[in-house]
Every structure is written in structure tokens, then in C-alpha cells.
């Protein structure tokens, strides 16, 4: 389950946008090794290069310099077609805003990665149905995304990310648009997926979520400033302090952290009162 051969190995990867005076360095010689079965939380302020790093690992982008090995294969300079195919077979994306296609049913959405792989319809719908059952949405298969709640949408998105049996699941603020109860359900689900042996890479602003991770990476100005293994269920003090000190000017962010920390009480998948949901949505948008 947790064989320690490196799944992802990034060596001195840089990403530079623009030319001359307008040059922006999004990533500066970042090196990182991810082993199979890890749950990594990436933290850092906006513009620290989290998303760029994720896009490179997720094969949506290519590094300007440096090497990227995925399953011992160098993928830093591969062509777009190969990149897309590797992405299809190895990466499962979970987005902050769910990104399900509105015109397709939940089942069709989940089956879509398999469609691009060329799996026959009956087989892929069955696989999608199984994946939905795993995230507890078996009875919502034929709903349209507009008919589901945020939490349900994100669970469907997780099913879509899982349906291909990816090497790594990349989650970009998976709870950013969710109320606290839904967020908790989604995080528990991610945690379960991790426990089944999947590798999860999560970007988050919320330090309380690092408790689900067994490794925390903190980024600042395009570099990894901090990389520490922690026990699952623990929020490292340093992370919290670092975040709080950097974010002390941001009142709303602080509030978010506090409310997130308070939501540790156990509870079933219930909808919270509307007022609270609205508030959390607002917060999500500001980010």
C-alpha cells in the first residue's frame, strides 16, 4: 500500500511567465518528491506558486526549466497529446468550483474521463455508477448538476477524479465553496480515499484541513519554504502560526480559519441553516 518508490519526482523546476522587464517567476527551482500513498497539503498565500506547481504536477502546464518524473518517466518535455493522455490516465482533478458539465447527468459527468479513454458506453457507465456508489451518490446518478447541493457536487467530482484509477488526485481548495458540514463530509471522503492507498495532493488556505494530511508543504514566493511530515489528525503549530502571522491583516480569512477550527463536532451529512451557507459561499468567492 505504501511502497516508498517515488511516484512523482520534481527537480529544480522553474516556471517563468513573460519576457524581459515583465518577467514573473511563478516557481523558482522547486524540488519535490511525492511517494505513493501520501496525502500532501500545500499551503501558502495567493501568488506563492501553489497553483502553478499543481498545474505542472497535474500535466496541465509544462515547466520552463527542470525535470519532472511521473512513475519514473520524464514528462517535463512531452508533447501535448501525450500530456493529455497521461493526464487522463494518471491525474484526477478536484476543483474548488466542482466543474461538472451542466448539461450532462451526474453519471455521464463521472463517466466522461473513461469516454476520452475509449471505454465502451455500458462499461464506463457501470464504472461511473460504482464510483458514485463509493461517494454515496448512487441515488443521484440521473440528476443534473444543477439539482445537487454543493457537497453532493463535490462528491460527484471526487467520483469523477477516481473513476480512472489515477496515480494521484489533485484537489484545488476542494472545500472552498462549501459550507462547513459539506466540507467535512468531503474531507472525510478524501481521507477515506487516502486510506485506501491513493495519493492526494491538496491545495488549501484553511490550516484546519491540514489535519487530514500526513505531509504539509508551505510555499512562499515560488519556493517551498517548509516541508514536514505530520501525523494524520494533527495541525502543526508552525503552519498555523505562519498562516496567522502572514494573514493577520486579513480579517475575513481569520474568521474563516476560526470557524473552520470550530467545526470539529461530529455530524451527519445534513444541510446547515441557510444563513451560514450563504456566508461560506461569499467567502469562497472572495478567494
Amino acid at each position, binding site marked *: 500500500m505504501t511502497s516508498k518508490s517515488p511516484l512523482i519526482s520534481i527537480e529544480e523546476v522553474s516556471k517563468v511567465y513573460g519576457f524581459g522587464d515583465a518577467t514573473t517567476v511563478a516557481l523558482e527551482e522547486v524540488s519535490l518528491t511525492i511517494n505513493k500513498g501520501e496525502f500532501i497539503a500545500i499551503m501558502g498565500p495567493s501568488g506563492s506558486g501553489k497553483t502553478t506547481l499543481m*498545474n505542472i504536477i*497535474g500535466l*496541465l*502546464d509544462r515547466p520552463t526549466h527542470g525535470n519532472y518524473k511521473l512513475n519514473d518517466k520524464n514528462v517535463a518535455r512531452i508533447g*501535448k*497529446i501525450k500530456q*493529455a*493522455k497521461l*493526464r*487522463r*490516465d494518471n*491525474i484526477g*482533478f478536484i*476543483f474548488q*468550483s466542482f*466543474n*461538472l*458539465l*451542466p*448539461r*450532462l447527468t451526474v453519471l455521464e459527468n463521472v463517466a*466522461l*474521463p473513461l*469516454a*476520452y*479513454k*475509449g471505454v465502451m458506453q455500458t462499461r464506463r457507465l457501470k464504472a461511473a455508477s460504482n464510483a458514485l456508489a463509493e461517494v454515496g451518490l448512487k441515488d443521484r446518478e440521473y440528476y443534473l448538476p444543477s439539482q445537487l447541493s454543493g457537497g453532493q457536487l463535490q462528491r460527484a467530482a471526487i467520483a*469523477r477524479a477516481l473513476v*480512472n484509477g489515477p496515480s494521484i488526485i489533485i484537489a484545488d481548495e476542494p472545500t472552498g465553496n462549501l459550507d462547513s458540514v459539506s466540507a467535512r463530509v468531503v474531507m472525510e471522503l478524501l481521507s477515506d480515499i487516502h486510506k485506501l492507498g491513493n495519493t492526494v495532493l491538496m491545495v488549501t488556505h484553511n490550516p484546519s484541513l491540514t489535519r487530514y494530511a500526513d505531509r504539509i508543504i508551505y510555499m512562499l514566493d515560488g519556493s517551498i519554504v517548509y516541508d514536514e511530515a505530520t501525523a494524520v489528525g494533527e495541525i502543526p503549530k508552525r503552519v498555523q502560526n505562519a498562516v496567522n502571522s502572514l494573514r493577520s491583516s486579513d480579517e475575513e480569512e481569520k474568521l474563516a480559519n476560526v470557524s473552520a477550527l470550530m467545526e470539529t463536532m461530529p455530524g451527519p451529512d445534513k444541510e446547515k441553516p441557510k444563513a451560514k451557507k450563504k456566508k461560506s459561499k461569499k467567502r469562497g468567492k472572495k478567494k
Partner: protein
Amino acid sequence: MITEYFKMALSSIRGAKFRSLLTMFGIIIGVSSVVTIVSLGEGVKHQVASKVDEVSDSLVVIRPGKKTEAKAFNLDSLRTFIGNTGSLSEKDWRDTEKVTGVKSVVPIGIVSGIVTYDSQEYLDGNIIATTKDLPSLLNQKLAFGEFFDESQYTRNVAIIGVDIAEKLFQENVPIGKSLNIRGKDFIVQGVFEQQKSATFAELNLNNSILIPYDAARQIGGTIQLMQLYVEAESPEKISDVAKNITSTLTKNHAGQEDFTIQGKEEALKTTNAVFYQITLFIAGVAFISFIVGGIGIMNIMFATVSERTREIGIRKAIGATNAQILGQFIMESAVLSFVGGFIGVLFALIANAIFRVTTDLQPVTTLNIVLIAVGLSSFTGIVSGLLPAAKAARKDPIASLRSEL
């Protein structure tokens, strides 16, 4: 994967029904008008062919004037035709009768004069002087009464068409009544059956009053010979007979061939040539409508691609290759125009049905034209979908994911 693209295309078309319909409109109009017009043309062609079939196989028609080949619609050919108009004389008629291989000759002479009945003038019809073999040669039956025979050649009798019966006499069977031509009374002794359309003999019997040639000469005035219908002894001898007549008449006309001899085959060739011109013209119009429709589709596809940037980003993130995105959008555009073509054909069929019910036209829609129209519209869709689809395929997934859904 193709079926996949097809399903995706259908679902996105269903997702924007009204817009899709508007987009298809150019193609719908193009296809429906082309199919309708070609069907009408095909129908007329069939009608002409069947009419030509009705006349005797041994029939050859001689007309004054040299007919130029129908090449294109231009005024020059018209002028040439007018300039070459010649005339046929009674001598031509008599000489033709003596040509070897000729069984009989029927003259069609226009008699000058005004028809009156009950002091009411009738100006629309023709008075035609002819002989007894006309009905059998044109295979035209009489509804009532009998055609005149040789013994009646000098008598003032008339056979009339259905239009004359209705308009002049205001009754179906005016047999025994008399009408007045140049002061002489002619007794109606027969009424033709409705003639469905003019034969290649170019004679509208519905609106004609037929009188014996000799009787016409007795009442004075001029008789202009418009046509001579020649019946050959057998259909095989037609070309020989035509040659013989040509040499005889050329002698009569001071060595000039200022007349036209036409058999059934040539008549069909002429109509087909005319329809070929019309078909070419329609093809040009169709081509333009397909270009316009295609540009409309391209325009909408560009809008769709911009609008669905986020969707493209999502699809790429979950593993769609550029080629797959390209295929999806080309298919969408192809399906859009294919459906447009299909609806266009349906419209054309409806229009044809209306033509059948309300007019004498009998449009014939062949499978060929339907396949060509639908195929061409699909092709238009593919071509006009190429650029927008390429734009979609080239989109950067990261930037696309950031755009609004």
C-alpha cells in the same frame, strides 16, 4: 469515439434549441429550395416525357425557322432565332406527302379571324385548319362527338377544346350549336378530352377550334402553316424520312434549310437541354445559399466555442486531447447542418405535396437529390466547423478553467 462525439453534439444542440434552429435556418432554406425546385423540374421533365410518349412513335414535326441549339440564356440566340424564321407553304405540304416513307401529313394552319357565338366575341382561342388524321397522330381522344372525316372536308364543321366549350358556350357538350368564323356558321360536332399539357407538337388543343383545311380555304382570309405533322410508315424509318423531307423542302426553299424537322427523341433532347440549364442555375443558387448557411454556422460555432471555454478547460483537465476537442466541435457543426439539411428536405417534401394538391405540377423527389442535398449540407457543416473547432482545440486548459462557466 465518433458515436461519443455524436451524442455530445446532440446534447449540446438540445441544450440550445432555439439558437440551433436559427443557426440551421440558412441550411434549411437552401436545402428546401433546392430540393423543391429540382423536384419540380424533375416532375415537369417526367410530364413532358410522358406526354411525348403519348404521341405516335412515327411522328415527325416540321416547323418553319431554323432552331438553334439551346446553349445558354442569352439574347443573341433569341435574335438569331427570330432572324431565321421562315415559312411553310401548301406546296411544302403536298411535296412532303410525296416523299418516300411518308404515310400521311397533317397540316396545322392558323386561320385568321374572330370567333363569335351569340354575338359574343371570343378572342383567346386559335382557329386551326387541319385534316382528319390529327387525333390519331397526337393520340388525343374526343370526349363527345366525332372528328371530321374526308367526306366532311368542305363542310363547315368544328371540333372544339374543353376551354372553348366552357368559355364560349358555357356548357360541357355544345354539340349541334354553331359558332361564327368570318361570317360563316360552323356546327360543333365534337369536343376533345382535356389535354393535360402541351405535347412536343406545341399545340394547345384545349383552347383551339379545329376546322377542315378545305373549309377554312373557302371562307377566305389567310392560313398560316405553323406546323406539318408527318407520320412515317414505321418508327424505324423516321430518320430516313426526315432526311428525304429535308432534301425536298430545301429545293422548295431555294436551297435554304429555313425549317426544323424534329422527332420525339430530339424533342426530349431539347427539353432536357433546357432543364440542364435550369439545373445549373439552381446549382449556382444552392452553392450561394450553402456558403451563406455555412458562414452562419461558422459564426455561431465561434460564439459557442468562446461561450464554452470553461467546458473545454474541464474536458481537457480530465484528459481530452486536442484532437478529441476538435472532433467534438466539428461533429457538433456537422450534426447541426445535417439536421438542418434533414429539416430542409422535410420542408421540400411538404412544399411538393402542396404543389401536387394545388397545381397541375407533379414534382418528383428522387433519392439522389435528397442524398446530394443532405450530404452537401453536412459537408458545409464540417468545413465551416473546422476553424472554430481548431480554435477550441488550441485553447489553453489553465486559462480556460479560469473563465466563467
